[in-house]
């Protein structure tokens, strides 16, 4: 896989003195879905805004498709589409005119067939003659996506695409993103909804206080940081947990019918086999076992908590 975006020691200090990015380096592969995960104020929007040309960096470089965003900005920006965090549309404009306008602004000639295909794929074709102010929030977001894709970019930035939308709309957005990805568009999305990153991304970058804490394929991240929780259902309720079992961290539910056990998938020996053996020895009959992976929220919390508080100089 080749990198379509190369970010090298990117920094931004705003006029107000806020250091929003501190030397972030990152390579984004062509065709992947990368989720940038981080709390509010982490610097996600700043990073995207620099790549797209809305914010001037104070240090570092970015290349998009090999083109430097400062010196070769026309070529770099032709490859990029941006869906901003805040919905901004001209209220009295028709949907289809909005999309045509953006395509023209990006310097591309008219292509009605492509615009029809685009609007259909985003379920906006029936609304093409509606004024944007008549649309629901989810539709407005899709109009922004259609605009961002109107010039056929290779990279799409989605800044918090599902912030403040309900579950149904969020799922709809995810399916749109998957379809785009299937078409070969590289997608960078930011989110603080952790299940979103978990469900969508190929790779996840965790960003906090202007620093990229890590970037990992999702599976690897889950594996490395994932604690698993083992649940053991019993046939007969236990009134008390045998001392030797309690010592190993096993817990008993109130009704005495379920045992719980947390273990680390990174450990050489998880101890599950011995645990089950011990249960048999104590004459405890096991009915069922289940394991559950901890979600990104827990992973994220542990990462951010591990990071020592740095002097905010």
């Amino acid at each position, binding site marked *: 896989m080749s990198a379509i975006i190369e970010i090298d020691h990117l920094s931004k200090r*705003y*006029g107000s003195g806020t250091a929003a990015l501190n030397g972030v380096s990152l390579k984004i592969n062509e065709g992947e879905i990368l989720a940038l995960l981080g709390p509010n104020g982490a610097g996600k929007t700043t990073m995207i*805004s620099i790549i*797209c*040309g*809305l*914010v*001037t960096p104070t240090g570092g470089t970015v290349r998009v498709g090999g083109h430097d965003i400062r010196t070769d*900005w*026309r*070529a*770099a*920006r*032709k490859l*990029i589409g*941006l869906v*901003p965090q*805040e919905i*901004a*549309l*001209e*209220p*009295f404009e028709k949907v289809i*005119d909005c999309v*045509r*306008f*953006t*395509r*023209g*602004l*990006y*310097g*591309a*000639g008219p292509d009605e067939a492509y615009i029809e295909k685009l609007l259909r794929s985003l379920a906006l074709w029936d609304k093409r003659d509606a004024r944007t102010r008549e649309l629901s929030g989810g539709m407005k977001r899709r109009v922004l996506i259609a*605009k961002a894709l109107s010039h056929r970019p290779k990279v799409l930035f989605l800044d918090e695409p599902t912030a403040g939308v309900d579950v149904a709309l969020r799922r709809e957005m995810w399916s749109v993103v998957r379809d785009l990805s299937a078409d070969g568009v590289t997608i960078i999305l930011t989110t603080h909804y952790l299940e979103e990153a978990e469900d969508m991304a190929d790779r996840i970058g965790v960003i906090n206080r202007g620093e990229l804490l890590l970037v990992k394929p999702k599976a690897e991240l889950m594996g490395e940081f994932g604690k698993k929780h083992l649940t053991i259902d019993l046939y007969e309720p236990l009134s008390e947990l045998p001392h030797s079992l309690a010592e190993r961290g096993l817990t008993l539910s109130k009704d005495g019918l379920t045992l719980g056990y947390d273990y680390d998938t990174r450990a050489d020996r998880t101890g599950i086999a011995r645990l089950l053996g011990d249960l048999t020895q104590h004459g405890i009959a096991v009915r069922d076992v289940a394991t559950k992976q901890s979600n990104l929220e827990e992973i994220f919390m542990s990462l951010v908590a591990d990071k020592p508080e740095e002097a905010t100089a």
Partner: protein
Amino acid sequence: MNWHSVRAVYHHEMARFFRTIWQSLASPVLSTVLYFVVFGAAIGGRIQSVEGVAYGAFIVPGLMMLTVLQQSVSNASFGIYFPKFSGTIYEYLVAPTGWIEVTLGFVGAAASKAVLIAMVILLTSFWFNGVHIAHPVWMMAFLFLTAIAFSLLGFIIGLWAKSFEQLQIVPMMVITPLVFLGGAFYSASMLPPFWEGVAKLNPVLYLISGFRWAFFDLADVPVGMSLVAVALMIVVCMAAIRWIFLTGWRLRE
């Protein structure tokens, strides 16, 4: 230079104008008719003529200029301020489009609207009093150049403005006084020598004078000076806009 970009911005701006074509035309035409009635008919009845031109006809170029200046500035400043206000400005900044394309689109549209409205006023004035145009080609040239120069100025005002109040204060406090003091309704030669000298410091006087020359062959200053004034203004404004876009002043963080 990408003409698709210029055309997209131009069409987008003109579409807004044509969506509200009647409001866009009604207000300038109405105020011009009022000027004709008050200055042309009421006062003109006493002044008779200025340098051989009936007063009602004499004020036509000045009125057209007043409208062109006001319309150019307000169209262009509103045109670029509105996306700043609604947040859609981000598109202009992330597009692979240079300042020159964006400026040509906005300014071209603002100037076109202003010229259109000025032409409607000219037609109205034909109906009030038969105006004779000595140099029609020069008249159109001055009209376009002035519209472009002041649309550029309006574009700068729109880029600079941070609120609707700021957007309106410059046209009100600067443009309108300059037009009135620039000889829209009188000839500078009617002023005492000292004030004639002061009036000639006003750049708008050169524009109105050149424009009036195109109508009546009468000018307060040499026509060449008028051309230089408008060309100078275009160059200075273009340079300022280029600087704004390249440095990102009030556009980029």
